[in-house]
């Protein structure tokens, strides 16, 4: 990899501005919020993000494929053996992520203005959102692992704050806390990984680590440990098995939050991190296989659960988990670019889906159960159209963005392991099915709610619809970023990210490239499969007008699935409860009954012995003299014997 560090004051300055704008927005809204008119908060927030989006665009077209901008602000933790600078660096991968973050971020800000306009916490919401954007940018821009970790935990904090945004509701607060703690579990792994790296290489700087990593290639154990610990972090952040349960609960937050944090950006941080340190992973086949396994398992598992969810946002949440799994499959296969590709497209259509869902919920004044919806296609047409297209994209309908990105991953899987190809194709078929189950139940047929509710339904304001339309466009044409060779176009994204991924290329075994015909066959299989699934869903829910039954009527496997395989309950039973029991045991028993008793016991013993000895003092002179005599006798005897 030939990175040439360009020192251009303008770019340096712009790069610095990118995170500063959201920070500024955060400070302004946070500190001066109460002095400004309520509405302004939204515009300030959005403006800040827009500003940094523009900066990103500028950098995007002025940054060559092999260029890197390094922005070293100041020495952070520096003394013997440790040298961690507070610095940012911008390379193509970063740029892509920044584009997603700021671009999608801006649209969602805009959307939120409409969505949240009558919420009492309007200002606070944008404060948090800006803070999130700031941390997310730090995450993707950080020039070393610790900087990334700042962003990493920062976004965790923001997600905590935003999930619990409506803090009066205890359930929401629990969800928020759950999210934070589960992320923390991953973070511990990340932290330990950093210790290993720091100890091995004496630095946490990405470039340096990438340079030095091969030196320990022969220590498979070590490198695998590092990679796996890092991956644990990714698991926590990107909601993979077994730490995925927080994400569905995280839907407690306002819908734009779900769109931004829990679909488009934050949850993909894990992917970004793996790609960022792809060399480390590439050096450890074991780690890659683990990733692959986890990814596959997650994608199928989540897809299955998705089949039986009736909360519009929960369905999307599980599909997110499943899609993230798919991305990890890509990474596990060593197809880092494909992972990023799917990340980007997914960001588009999943954000769109959430926003659409938000628009639906907005229209229905907070109703989220799809069994109480239906027939909305005429009432909120824009939402319907965009939502439909997004669903097509995610289901892999030919020539839409999702089709290409997914297909690339499938192709890689096919090259390396036919079995994996089968499994993930299955999961993408499932995806297509539950997505359209969702679409049809929501929009098709006739409204199943009360007339009173129906009366209130209306299309959302432009601030909400515009982002929908833009995202819709993106998710339709997003595929252009990575047209496969079949279309006689070179894969743009792959080329753009080559500098990043080349480092690892040499360590990955490359199966021979598929023949075009084979690729076309695969594509058509996937496309046809998707379409068949969609038709099947239509048959089920439109023709037969089937309705998902009430939860309690479910039995057997369905019940299991509807209850998410009781994973939450298992964790509750086997982790939380024991810890609480321990807490009570330690606090109530060990601490009070044992340790404290021992300490007090000493005191008691001393006191009692005093009270006993005291009785010798009988007050009888005869006895005193007697005692003295005995004492003397004892002395003499001691002296005689010794």
């Amino acid at each position, binding site marked *: 990899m030939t990175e040439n560090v360009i020192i251009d004051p303008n770019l340096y300055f712009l790069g610095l501005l990118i995170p500063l704008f959201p920070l500024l927005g955060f400070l302004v809204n946070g500190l001066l919020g109460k002095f400004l008119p309520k509405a302004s908060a939204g515009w300030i927030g959005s403006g800040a993000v827009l500003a940094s989006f523009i900066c990103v665009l500028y950098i995007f077209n002025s940054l060559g494929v092999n260029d890197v901008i390094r922005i070293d602000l100041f020495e952070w933790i520096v003394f013997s053996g440790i040298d961690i600078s507070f610095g940012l660096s911008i390379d193509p991968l970063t740029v892509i992520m920044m584009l997603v973050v700021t671009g999608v971020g801006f649209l969602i800000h805009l959307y939120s203005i409409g969505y949240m306009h009558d919420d009492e916490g309007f200002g606070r919401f944008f404060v948090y959102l800006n803070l999130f954007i700031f941390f997310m940018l730090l995450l993707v821009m950080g020039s070393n692992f610790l900087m990334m970790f700042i962003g990493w935990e920062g976004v965790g904090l923001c997600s905590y704050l935003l999930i619990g945004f409506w803090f009066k509701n205890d359930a929401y607060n629990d969800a928020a806390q759950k999210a934070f703690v589960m992320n923390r579990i991953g973070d511990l792994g990340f932290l330990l990984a950093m210790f290993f790296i720091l100890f091995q290489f004496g630095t946490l700087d990405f470039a340096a680590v990438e340079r030095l990593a091969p030196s320990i290639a022969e220590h498979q154990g070590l490198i695998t440990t590092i990679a796996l610990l890092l991956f644990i972090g990714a698991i926590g952040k990107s909601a993979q098995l077994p730490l995925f349960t927080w994400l569905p609960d995280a839907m407690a937050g306002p819908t734009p939050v779900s769109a931004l944090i829990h679909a488009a950006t934050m949850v993909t941080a894990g992917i970004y991190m793996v790609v960022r340190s792809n060399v480390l992973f590439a050096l450890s086949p074991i780690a890659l296989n683990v990733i692959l396994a986890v990814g596959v398992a997650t994608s199928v598992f989540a897809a299955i659960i998705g089949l039986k969810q009736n909360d519009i946002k929960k369905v999307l949440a599980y599909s997110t988990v499943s899609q993230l799994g798919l991305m990890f499959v890509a990474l596990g296969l060593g197809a880092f670019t494909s992972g990023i590709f799917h990340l980007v497209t997914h960001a588009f259509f999943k954000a769109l889906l959430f926003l659409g869902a938000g628009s639906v919920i907005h229209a229905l004044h907070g109703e989220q159960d799809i069994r109480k919806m239906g027939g909305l296609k005429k009432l909120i047409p824009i939402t319907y159209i965009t939502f439909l297209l997004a669903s097509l994209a995610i289901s892999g309908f030919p020539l839409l963005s999702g089709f290409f990105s997914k297909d690339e991953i499938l192709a890689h899987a096919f090259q390396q392991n036919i079995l994996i190809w089968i499994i993930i194709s299955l999961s993408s078929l499932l995806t297509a099915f539950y997505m359209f189950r969702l679409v049809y139940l929501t929009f098709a047929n006739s409204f199943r709610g009360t007339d009173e509710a129906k009366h209130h339904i209306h299309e959302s304001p432009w601030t909400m619809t515009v982002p929908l339309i833009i995202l819709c466009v993106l998710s339709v044409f997003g595929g252009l970023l990575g047209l496969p060779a079949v279309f006689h176009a070179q894969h743009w994204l792959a080329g753009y990210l080559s500098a990043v991924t080349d480092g690892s290329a040499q360590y990955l075994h490359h199966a021979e490239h598929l023949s075009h015909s084979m690729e076309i066959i695969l594509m058509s299989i996937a496309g046809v499969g998707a379409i068949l699934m969609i038709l099947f869903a239509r048959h089920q829910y439109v023709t037969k007008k089937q309705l998902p039954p009430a939860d309690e009527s479910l039995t057997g496997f369905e019940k299991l699935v509807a209850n998410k395989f009781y994973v939450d309950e298992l964790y509750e039973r086997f982790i939380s409860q024991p810890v609480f029991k321990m807490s009570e045991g330690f606090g109530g028993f060990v601490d009070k009954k044992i340790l404290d008793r021992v300490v007090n016991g000493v005191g008691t013993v*001393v*006191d009692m*012995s*005093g*009270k006993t*000895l*005291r009785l*010798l*003092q009988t*007050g009888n*002179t005869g*006895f*005193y*003299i007697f*005692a*003295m005599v*005995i*004492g*003397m006798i004892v*002395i*003499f005897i*001691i*002296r005689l014997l*010794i």
Partner: protein
Amino acid sequence: MYTLIYTCCLGLLCLVGEILNLRKLLIPMILAGLAAIFVVNCMEWDAAGPVIIGGMDMSHMMRVDSYSIAFSGLSIFTAMLIFALTGNFYKNEEHHLSDYLAILVFVLTGALVLFSFYNLVMLFLGIEIVSISLYVMAGSRRQDIRSNEAGFKYFLMGSFASAILLFGITLIFGATGSFELDKIAAFASSGTDSTLLHIGALLVISGMLFKVAAVPFHFWSPDVYEGSPSLVTVMMSTLVKVAFFAAFFRLMSVGLSGIHDYTSDILSLVAALTLIAGNLIALSQNNFKRLLAYSGISHAGYMLLAVLSIENEASSALWYYGAAYVLATIGAFAVAIPVFYFRNDETIDAFNGLGKKNPLQAAFLTISMLSLAGIPPLAGFLGKYYIFSEAIRSGYIWLTIVAVLASIVGIYYYFKVILAMYTKDTVEPEVKSPMLYTVVMIVCVVLSLLLGVWPGPFTNLL
């Protein structure tokens, strides 16, 4: 030497003063006299020659050296503090005042003899002067049955102990053919293994242990301390205790140093017992004087460490500890006696609410208690430190550990008093403590602070 003579004269003067009806003047006179004697004593510091009487050298009887002068100075100063308290204490029994004062002065005389003795005869006489006078003083509240009891108990056990002491002295005489410390020391260190000497030494030590109230010869002290008039208790627990210890130390370090190995482990056993028993029993006491009696026993234990470790510094450690102990105790009593008087109660509850009613007194009593407990930066702490340091230096490690643990226990009962003052409440009115008492209290507390913060002049006194 002159110190002794003048003190005797002072005692006689008291009696004369009685005859001349100068009761009012007595106490000022004594204080002035003691001050003068104190000066004289200090002047002897460098000019201490052999003791000459009627042209005869009495060096075989007593020697005035820095040791005796230092302790004399301390005890004279103590006596001044105590006499300052007598005025108000005895104001109800004026017709006996002069007698009491005279006897107390004679106690001081005996103490002076004890500091400078160089012959077992002198030791014996000194002890007896002090003891007999104290028997009287302890029983001096004749209508008070408790006082009688205290006096008689003290008398019985005291004379019993004296008899034992005498028996020991006799055996030593039998062994060495002399009463002079020099000769005894010479014989003892000559290495001739004489059982007579050993047994005699043990008996003498038992006698001394009784006088300093060490376990198992301590039984008299709590009862006597509790029963006697408070002022006498002060006298016994401060001046006299120090005097006996000084004598004990002199005996062990000069006379019997030759058989130190023979006596040391007996003594250390006794010291350990004393430390443990004294502190433990004190925990459950509710009567202030009795509490101080037990605490006095435990302090005897600490001082025994000094007696055990007979190095040069040990004497100054003993002196310093004695000083700290004396100051703290007198300071405490200077607060306590008026409280007892006004609240007519000698238990710890008498101090309830003192923190609110008399903040000054409470604060000073607190400081005295802290000093007794050995909390820095008060004198009590440095005193303990020296004693421990010397003991460790002389290799009594386990004994010192016992002492340390014991002093941890000790803290508790000193704090009982403090807690009573600050956490309990009372309906009793404020205590109006006489001016002289306040003065004494302030002097003691200030000194024990000074001694703790700036001990330079006093630490290497000897």
